[in-house]
């Protein structure tokens, strides 16, 4: 509308340009003051919401870092915990315990989660009532509080039919059940996102349904599936409540093993330190939070790297 050109000198053109400029303003009209205020106010409200959310999160992280950073040293990772010497106490059994448990969770959720998603998307007949029941309940399961899974683990895995006892493997199974719905939902979305034209093109070439699945659909949906796995790991690492229920003992001084003996995990150990009265232990807990975040970041980075690698393939 507004230009930097000089107004033309010759009469007819000048009239035409003036008419065009005037016309272009009057055709569309001006916006009302209310509209203009709204268009400034609404983004401001959204920014406020964002700021509040981030401030809460940031304050937690800042507290952890401020308290825990001075305490960070190699002892944290390599030393066993101690109730008497907070200056040299460490998180070693907890770190090992967390790594073992999460490794077990990954081994369980990838085949089970992806397999369930493939069945639901590719093979299940949507009309059947039991398939619809499954669909409905996966969404529900994703929202069940984690303590319920702790009770489930105690009743059926640690004791009950499986009777595995208070070992790290029990924790893996329990946490895997907890995060499995997340993986199934994410994998289903990823598989659904592959366009039907790709499937048709593959089948029209004489490929079987399994070949189409394994060579076209699954490779194309791998990034989405990995995202689901990343989300699942992130949740499982931080869950303390179910671990407390199924016997992640809060004070373990020896290195754990997967299939026998006691174990602990980072969230539990942090809790153990945080409730002690001495200030030094609370600093230790804060340092533990930093360690836990570092472990989480490490695992997530690996999964993101893996996802990027598959995305670049094509």
């Amino acid at each position, binding site marked *: 509308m507004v230009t930097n050109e000089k107004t033309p000198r010759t009469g007819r053109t000048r009239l035409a340009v003036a008419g065009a400029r005037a016309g272009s303003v009057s055709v569309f009209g001006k916006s009302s003051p209310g509209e203009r205020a709204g268009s400034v106010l609404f983004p401001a409200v959204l920014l406020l919401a964002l700021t509040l959310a981030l401030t809460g999160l940031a304050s937690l992280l800042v507290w952890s870092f401020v308290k825990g950073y001075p305490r960070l040293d190699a002892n944290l990772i390599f030393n066993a915990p101690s109730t008497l010497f907070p200056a040299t106490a460490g998180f070693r059994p907890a770190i090992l315990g967390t790594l073992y448990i999460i490794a077990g969770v990954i081994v369980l959720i990838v085949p089970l989660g992806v397999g369930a998603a493939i069945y639901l998307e590719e093979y299940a007949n949507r009309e059947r009532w039991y398939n619809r029941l499954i669909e409905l309940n996966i969404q529900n399961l994703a929202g069940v509080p984690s303590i319920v899974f702790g009770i489930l683990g105690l009743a059926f895995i640690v004791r009950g039919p499986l009777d595995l006892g208070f070992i790290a493997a029990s924790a893996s199974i329990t946490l895997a059940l907890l995060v499995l719905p997340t993986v199934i939902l994410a994998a289903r979305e990823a598989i659904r996102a592959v366009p039907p034209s790709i499937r048709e093109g593959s089948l*029209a*070439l004489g490929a079987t349904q399994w070949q189409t699945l394994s060579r*076209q659909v699954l490779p194309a949906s791998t990034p989405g599936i990995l995202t689901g796995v990343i989300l699942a790991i992130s949740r499982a690492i931080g869950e303390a409540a179910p671990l407390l229920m199924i016997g992640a003992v809060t004070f373990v001084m020896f290195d754990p093993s997967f299939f026998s003996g006691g174990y602990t995990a980072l969230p539990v150990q942090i809790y153990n330190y945080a409730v002690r009265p001495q200030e030094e232990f609370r600093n230790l807990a804060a340092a533990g939070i930093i360690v836990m975040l570092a472990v989480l970041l490490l695992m997530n980075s690996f999964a993101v790297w893996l996802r990027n690698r598959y995305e670049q393939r094509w």
Partner: protein
Amino acid sequence: MDESGAPAIQVAPSELHTHGHIEHRKKVFELNKVSVYYGDTKAVSDVSLDIYHRNITALIGPSGCGKSTLLRSLNRMNDLIPGARVEGEVFYHESNLYDRKVNPVQVRKLIGMVFQKPNPFPKSIYENVAFGPKSLGMKDDMDDIVEQALRDAALWDEVKDRLHTNAYGMSGGQQQRLCIARAIATQPEVILMDEPCSALDPVSTGKIEDLMVELKRNYSIVIVTHNMQQAARVSDMTALLMVELDSDEHNRWGEVIEYDDTNKIFTNPRDPRTDQYVSGRIG
């Protein structure tokens, strides 16, 4: 392409009667009162016609008259649609495609398909063309197969230096030619094309029409097109389908109005509706 245990598909020349005189033209398909239903709705009604070897057969007609449905029944792609069923017989050489013992996967190895919107896989050009032969277990040198297929699809010169780049980096016309290369890499006998040029510009369309005439030397082609001039340009035989209403005017389905040499359809058709359609007065 025969695997042990699968029913062998017989090839034999056959006689046919057209317009009262006998011709010895080899048939590829013999459709016998073929009707296609989606659930309870009839989409295509009572089609009986023969498709000849190494001809280009065009199915023309207005939108929604069942041309694509009929085409897809030739390689059992309608099986993918829940509730779709085919009555009648579709003989591919001497074997009924819809016999209970026939495996649709085997059918599609011999009868390939190219779709309206180019649908290359999200892989490299090489992997796209190699996918069919690899899935079928062809043991020959894959590089040779890929090169031969791309040459036959008139695409080799344009992509030979970037075989391992993403297929989506090509233009629409190139992508469609890639889909054709992909289909012929498995050495089918028949290529079905469902409006292959309708998503392309006129220059790409011309290239693909030239390609079809070349491919006719080795493959039998059945093409659905809503472009009458295209049918007149490239095809040997043309079938006109139109929508017919049944007696109480509630149900509509597609029927073959006339099927004959392309020349006759466009210059001297028997049915007045054909004359009206090809001259643009209806449809």
